């Protein structure tokens, strides 16, 4: 039987690197998809998730309920993704341009890859708060109460963001799936 989160969190607090390794192994891939959808690429998500885990490692003492380590970690993931997208927005749209150039240079023609890129571009067209709410709701399939706990945003505001995101995505992706 695997060790409960509480014991592993206590181990990390006591300086046990093995306990940290076990937590990473347990949650390693759990939030990767969210980070990829929010940042736009696996490479950027990798950076974000490295940062997430180091933040969790340094601040494990502030995890008030170790039995709910996963929920606490999710909050860090959301915050790191917000920080990342905010910083990127401050740059000169380099990310989007680079992505287009890379795709053109590689001449990617596989339908699945092309569809996923179209979807990712559509997600990136959404305001960050709408993208975050939409991904948590319809990609990660969390309840509004769960999303409210993780993001600190009220349920009614979340519903509005998700609704607007769906509407915008339908417009952006209309041509993609009616081909």
């Amino acid at each position: 039987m695997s060790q409960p989160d509480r014991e592993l969190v206590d181990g990390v607090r006591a300086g046990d690197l093995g306990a940290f390794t076990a937590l990473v192994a347990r949650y390693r891939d759990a939030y990767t998809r969210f980070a990829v959808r929010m940042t736009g690429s696996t490479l950027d998500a990798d950076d974000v998730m490295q940062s997430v885990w180091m933040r969790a490692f340094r601040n494990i003492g502030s995890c008030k309920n170790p039995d709910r380590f996963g929920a606490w970690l999710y909050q860090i993931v959301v915050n790191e993704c917000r920080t990342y997208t905010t910083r990127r927005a401050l740059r000169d749209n380099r990310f989007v341009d680079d992505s287009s150039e890379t795709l053109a240079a590689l001449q990617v023609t596989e339908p699945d890859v092309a569809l996923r890129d179209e979807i990712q571009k559509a997600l990136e067209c959404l305001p960050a708060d709408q993208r975050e709410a939409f991904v948590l709701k319809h990609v990660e399939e969390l309840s509004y109460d769960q999303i409210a706990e993780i993001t600190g945003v009220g349920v009614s505001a979340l519903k509005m963001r998700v609704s607007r995101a769906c509407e915008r995505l339908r417009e952006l992706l209309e041509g993609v799936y009616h081909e």
Partner: protein
Amino acid sequence: MSDMRDGETRDTGLDERVLKAMRAPEVLAPDFESRLMAQARAEIARRQATTARRNWWVTGRVFVASPLAAFAMAAGIALAAAASTLVVTRRPEPAIIAKHDTVEFVRFVLVDSSARTVSVVGDFNGWKRDETPLNVASKPGVWSVSLPLSPGRHEYAFIVDGKRWVVDPASIAASDEFGTESSVLLVAPASIGAL
């Protein structure tokens, strides 16, 4: 595609194929965990060094010395204090130990859709061409690897298909005394402090 779960609508009005693609699992690079653990070990080492330095100052010590030796020690301490004052006056840089305790992870990326293998060589791996291979990243032809590097100046190049020397197009280049070009990377010390 409309259903209800937990009393909440799942209707997005989006095509199922789109949602399926959005929900496709994503996997991080195979070396994600080893890079993370290297960072965690560096963090622990930094904490231990900080604690050791703090303990050295707060731990009580008893010195036994003859009157003559005590006088010599007192004079020595006074001289050391004066000298350190001079050093601090000339060089106000603090926390030099932190620079040595810390590594920064640097991601090397090369886009080459025709390459079959790519590796990076540099002063950090002894310019060994098989030491540090790059992996195909999220898209075909995009090669990458992240390495822990100490702060400072590093020179490197890519080796494509085991023989072709490629200077990083995204970096500045420098030539050695034989005219061979390599790329230059400056790694700044990691910022230190609580998050």
